């Protein structure tokens, strides 16, 4: 009897420790996020008035007004949206096609292509900026959104991820069965493989969306008119030591992160849809 209670106590203590650890982690990851919301309610003088200011300021409305005053905030948001959504959809399509081919087919040049892909991840973007701009300029894509998403729609990261996902989750028998049923290669990919890839695609969607949304270097050199600019550009363009409207900037930054959180929450349901909660518990 006592041994049993001891056992239960131990389990309880174990659970408590586990949850304490999990929640400490949550605190550490969420804190900066909420802190930037707090900062969005201050102006520059009160923001820097003490080491770690955790009070709620009264400048939220004023900051919002200032934000709209200093930049076409919602135009930037809309541009970021269109770039990120179109770019993400394109890369879901392209990366899944390529990743699928690399995982399933044996063809001449496969290893070369795969190697090239991995290698191209290793080139530092800060140095390829000039040739990138030369290409964009040469084919007349300056000041277009296309220039900002198209080159990244074949993200090697995404292709690699999908390749690994296909290897892990698409049973070979299924593909052969589809073939025996007379399904064409594209039909197999579209109606058999893609649905199975849903969690992998959701992960890719998040990563690609976040990347496109936060990307700064390429928009900086390519997008030059204010009606084309993306939000990262706008938020960065008002920064500088002199008179940065910090409160407005923090508010803008906070709002600009919200879509990312939203996308994550939507996609994360898809991501773990493969898990049926019943089977794995305990």
């Amino acid at each position, binding site marked *: 009897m006592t041994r049993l209670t001891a056992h239960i106590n131990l389990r309880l203590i174990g659970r408590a420790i*586990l949850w304490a650890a999990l929640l400490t982690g949550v605190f550490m990851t969420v804190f900066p996020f909420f802190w930037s919301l707090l900062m969005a309610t201050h102006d520059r003088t009160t923001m820097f008035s003490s080491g770690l200011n955790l009070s709620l300021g009264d400048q939220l409305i004023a900051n919002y007004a200032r934000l709209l005053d200093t930049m076409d905030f919602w135009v930037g948001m809309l541009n970021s949206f269109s770039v990120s959504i179109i770019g993400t959809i394109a890369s879901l399509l392209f990366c899944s096609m390529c990743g699928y*081919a690399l995982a399933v087919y044996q063809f001449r040049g496969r290893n070369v292509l795969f190697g090239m892909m991995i290698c191209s991840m290793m080139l530092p973007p800060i140095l390829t900026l000039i040739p990138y701009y030369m290409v964009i300029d040469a084919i007349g894509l300056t000041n277009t959104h296309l220039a900002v998403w198209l080159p990244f729609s074949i993200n090697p990261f995404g292709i690699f991820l999908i390749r690994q996902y296909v290897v892990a989750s698409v049973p070979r028998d299924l593909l052969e069965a589809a073939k025996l049923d007379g399904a064409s290669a594209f039909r197999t990919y579209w109606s058999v493989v893609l649905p199975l890839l849903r969690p992998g695609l959701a992960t890719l969607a998040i990563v690609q969306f976040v990347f496109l949304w936060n990307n700064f270097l390429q928009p900086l050199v390519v997008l030059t008119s204010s009606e084309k600019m993306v939000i990262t550009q706008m938020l960065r363009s008002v920064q500088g030591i002199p008179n940065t409207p910090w409160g407005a900037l923090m508010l803008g930054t906070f709002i600009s992160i919200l879509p990312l959180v939203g996308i994550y929450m939507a996609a994360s349901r898809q991501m773990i849809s493969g898990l049926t909660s019943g089977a794995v518990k305990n």
Partner: protein
Amino acid sequence: MSTNLETPVSAPANSAAERDNAPADRWRTLWHKSTPYWFMSPYILIFGIFGIFPVFFMIFLSFHTWNPVAGLGSMEFVGLENYALSLTDPTLWQTLKNTILMALYSGVPQHLVALPMAYLLVQLGKRARHWLTTAYFLPYVTSTIAVSMIFFVMFSKESGIINQALTGLANGTLTGWAFGWINDLMPIGWVQENSLIRYSVSFVVFWKYVGFNIVIYTTGLATISDDLYEAAIMDGANAVQRFFYIALPLLRPFIFFGVTLTIIGNMNLFDEPYVLTRGLQQASTNGMTISNYLYRVAWEWLDMGGAAAISWILFVVIGAFTGFYFWFFGRRGLGGD
């Protein structure tokens, strides 16, 4: 490769048909043979347009001196001088060392934490899992401005939360006897001291990307069939055993993917050290990564040729690490037979 469809399953039927009406079927075979290339065509096309030129440009550049501000016409051929200069540059080796150390300090814990964490998270109830993963993913999307500001406040010598907590520990009635020695070290300059900067940077990198890896591993865990776990439970395996004997081996393609990404990403580390060393103004001897140095040479010193040479040296180093890694773990990690 476990799945190889290039030799069609229905090969005999096809070859029989081939004898009957050859031209149409030759087309079909060609079509079949070209299928993978059709799938690869977006990559080939887009990489061909946007990717090839920069690569050749950088190779070309590395054999020239070029001040970008003077325009394209001002390149001068110097042969291997850029490489000779870079390979004998002590700063390059110092920054390479910094990069590797910070890659290790931040990379290894990322995976050691993310793997069990992801496993743990999928066992929790649906709702808890959803909210917790969202929370852990937040650092990955939180803006660099907010992150750098908050970490500066936390790392601050006099008023920083970390130093205050340590001082509290050192002077507390209960903890004083064990931590009293901390007082001698105060105030600790987490981002000012060359001896500490690598750990501070690594911590921020770890903090930022651990959630990302949790997401990758959660995705991976979703591919593991429930039957396997059920069978293991029947056999009396506990949660820890199931982690080591079922989850871990089946996660291999994802671990391989995640680690490859960490190697490449960490070797190209730029933002966090740049921000925490205040644009390379403090503690930069140990805090500057090779990418930071590359930026300095290219964009501050305007020596694009020298920077191109450095980037190819970096490329070879990362390539060597990645190649090594692929060679050791690739067979299993890539899902080969």
